[in-house]
């Protein structure tokens, strides 16, 4: 069977390409990676009017055919039919922002010059109208020599016309391989001429973006607004998630109860209840927090605010040798370092990018929250230290700050040692403000939720169950002074690790939890829960809340050292794997693991020793 012809969606950043892609393909999307490089490949199926399917691929936003970053190199290679593992395109859909015509036509003219079957989607004509621009699409088509279709992706306008044009273009159903001509310095001037010719009328528009920027980027209000947005965001992560977390916990309890009543007491029931439901459940409860954080990031990004945040943060980031562009990946890393590290692809300076990747794991990702909240609830008294400020919240905030300060210091050092070199610049387009479309937000959230649940269902479940097995066997003999978890295979491995971590105040249970926590940090919680469930002498103790049990068994210095460990330790294999992929080798992930474990050991040790010295 012949593969469906490939149609590439290509254009400048902020041309509304992804919205158009979503509008054309709906939820039928596949997200993968191009082989050998770390560029995301988003593709989807588009069914033409005559029933023929084509594969639509959404290429990364690019300014020209002469690449400055890996993203742009892939875009060029796919377009000219030389990308490994990708068939040459049967047609191009060039997306241009109608309200930025003179600028976006530059790349469009370069692309049209390749001679491939091409249609131009004149997108966001509604925003252009808002800005007082009327464009003659027919005239533009005549000037460019290719069909031009007016679209408003977010309102689903013009999609049928676009589909019909694509249908005509892939009629011949043949793929094309072409070569890129040398860079033409006159192309920008030509683009401006064509734009001037195609624009029918131009009157002063409402300048919505300019008015908003006047406030949002003002030297006084701007930073305050940014701080307020970040504050509300982190506040919401905790406040809004309470109820849904309760529902998930309730659901898990019901499930565990149902399984217990259906299955006879024995191996299978213990495995399912203690291993699977408890283990996976203790991780899935954090889905609401992750989704709330991503919701904020997606909304800010789609609305156009993120670039403004990067603008305001640039000078601060420059202080540690980074640029404002690093702000967005680092903010995403508060949800999870993996999408954060992948988002560094937009940083064109390789040293800036490497530094950002290396410090991204220091941002407090949501996987640490299970660990933090458990330990804080168990050891930090819930008393008030000021009006509206609780001690527990303050400690949690402190852990975030320690991570951020640690990251900034690490960046400073990395930029002066392993990633030494001239500072990269900061050049960034501040896109027009837009109301985000609900469908796009829902799709983005769904893709993230699915990624998390898949992880919970595979890596996390696998490691929890494996730990349960290793901690349950061999059975401790009757009358032995050792507990089951100490006697088991896992316990014996942990005894080895215990020698290393005892100086920083860690006990046998922690040593045991550290191994599976390499799969994912939050597994530390389910691992400790599993160990206690196995060791519980009777049903009653087994149902005791995990926090209460910890409070009775760990000293405060140990608990604090455990928290500090999790601020720094690179406790997540997926992060190491994505770093290897993004840096093309083992050198940098190895460096990252060593420096972060070193920091974690020192920080946990220093915390433990000073807490003991203070007599806590």
């Amino acid at each position: 069977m012949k593969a469906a012809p490939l149609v590439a969606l290509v254009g400048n950043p902020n041309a509304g390409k992804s919205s158009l892609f979503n509008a054309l393909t709906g939820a039928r999307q596949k997200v993968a990676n191009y082989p050998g490089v770390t560029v995301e490949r988003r593709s989807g199926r588009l069914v033409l009017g005559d029933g023929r399917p084509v594969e639509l691929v959404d290429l990364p936003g690019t300014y020209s055919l002469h690449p400055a970053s890996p993203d742009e190199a892939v875009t060029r290679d796919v377009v000219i039919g030389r990308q490994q593992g990708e068939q040459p395109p049967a047609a191009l859909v060039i997306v241009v922002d109608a309200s930025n015509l003179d600028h976006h036509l530059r790349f469009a003219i370069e692309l049209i010059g390749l001679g491939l079957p091409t249609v131009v989607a004149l997108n966001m004509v509604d925003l252009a109208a808002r800005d007082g621009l009327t464009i003659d699409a027919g005239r533009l088509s005549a000037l460019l020599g290719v069909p031009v279709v007016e679209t408003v992706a977010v309102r689903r306008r013009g999609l049928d016309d676009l589909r019909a044009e694509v249908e005509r273009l892939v009629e011949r159903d043949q793929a094309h391989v072409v070569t890129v001509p040398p860079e033409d310095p006159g192309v920008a001037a030509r683009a401006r001429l064509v734009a001037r010719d195609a624009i029918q009328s131009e009157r002063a528009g409402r300048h919505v973006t300019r008015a908003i920027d006047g406030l949002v980027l003002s030297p006084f209000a701007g930073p305050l607004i940014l701080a307020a947005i970040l504050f509300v965001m982190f506040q919401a992560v905790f406040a809004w998630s309470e109820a849904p977390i309760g529902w998930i916990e309730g659901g898990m309890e019901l499930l565990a109860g149902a399984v217990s009543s259906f299955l006879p007491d024995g191996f299978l029931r213990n495995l399912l209840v203690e291993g699977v439901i408890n283990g996976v459940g203790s991780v899935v409860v954090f889905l609401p927090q992750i989704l709330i954080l991503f919701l904020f990031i997606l909304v800010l990004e789609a609305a156009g605010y993120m670039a403004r945040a990067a603008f305001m943060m640039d000078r601060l980031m420059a202080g540690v040798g980074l640029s404002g562009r690093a702000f967005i990946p680092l903010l995403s890393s508060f949800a999870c370092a993996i999408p954060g590290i992948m988002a560094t692809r937009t940083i064109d300076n390789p040293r800036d990018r490497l530094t950002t990747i290396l410090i991204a794991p220091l941002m407090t990702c949501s996987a640490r929250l299970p660990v933090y909240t458990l330990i804080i609830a168990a050891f930090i008294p819930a008393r008030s230290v000021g009006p509206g400020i609780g001690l527990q919240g303050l400690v949690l905030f402190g852990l975030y700050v320690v991570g951020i300060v640690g990251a900034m210091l690490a960046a400073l050092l990395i930029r002066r040692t392993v990633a030494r070199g001239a500072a990269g610049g900061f050049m960034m387009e501040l896109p027009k403000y837009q109301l985000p479309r609900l469908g796009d937000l829902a799709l983005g959230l769904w893709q993230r939720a699915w990624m998390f649940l898949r992880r919970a269902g595979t890596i996390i479940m696998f490691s929890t169950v494996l730990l349960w097995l290793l901690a349950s066997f061999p059975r401790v003999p009757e009358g032995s002074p050792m507990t089951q978890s100490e006697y088991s295979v896992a316990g014996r491995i942990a005894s080895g690790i215990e020698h290393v971590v005892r100086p920083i105040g860690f006990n046998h249970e922690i040593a045991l939890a550290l191994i599976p926590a390499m799969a994912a940090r939050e597994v530390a919680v389910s691992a400790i829960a599993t160990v206690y469930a196995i060791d519980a002498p009777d049903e009653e103790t087994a149902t005791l809340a995990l926090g209460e049990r910890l409070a009775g068994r760990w000293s405060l210095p140990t608990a604090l050292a455990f928290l500090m460990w999790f601020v720094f330790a690179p406790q997540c294999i997926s992060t190491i794997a994505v770093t290897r992929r993004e840096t093309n080798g083992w050198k940098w992930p190895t460096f990252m693991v060593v420096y972060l474990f070193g920091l974690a050991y020192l920080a946990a040790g220093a915390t433990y020793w000073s807490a003991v010295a203070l007599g806590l």
Partner: protein
Amino acid sequence: MSEAAEAGLRLDEFPLKTVGVINRIDWDLLGEGARRLRELGFAEGVEVEPLHRGFIGRDPLACRIGRMTIAIRRVQAAAIRVSPTPA
């Protein structure tokens, strides 16, 4: 016209909310950033209007180029010479 007036003002010193025309860009001074700047629409003869500055050290600088707003650092803006448009 005097030589100084012909050279114009450096973009980082050009008054905010004032429309000017780029009359010279020192591409060599920009180094590896030169091409990106060109791709973002900076070129001799193009209208430019500085709009906002960062809140620390008045860096970076956001300017209007055509119908876009582009943020660049002061060091980059210093390589661009701008003349006021005749009223």
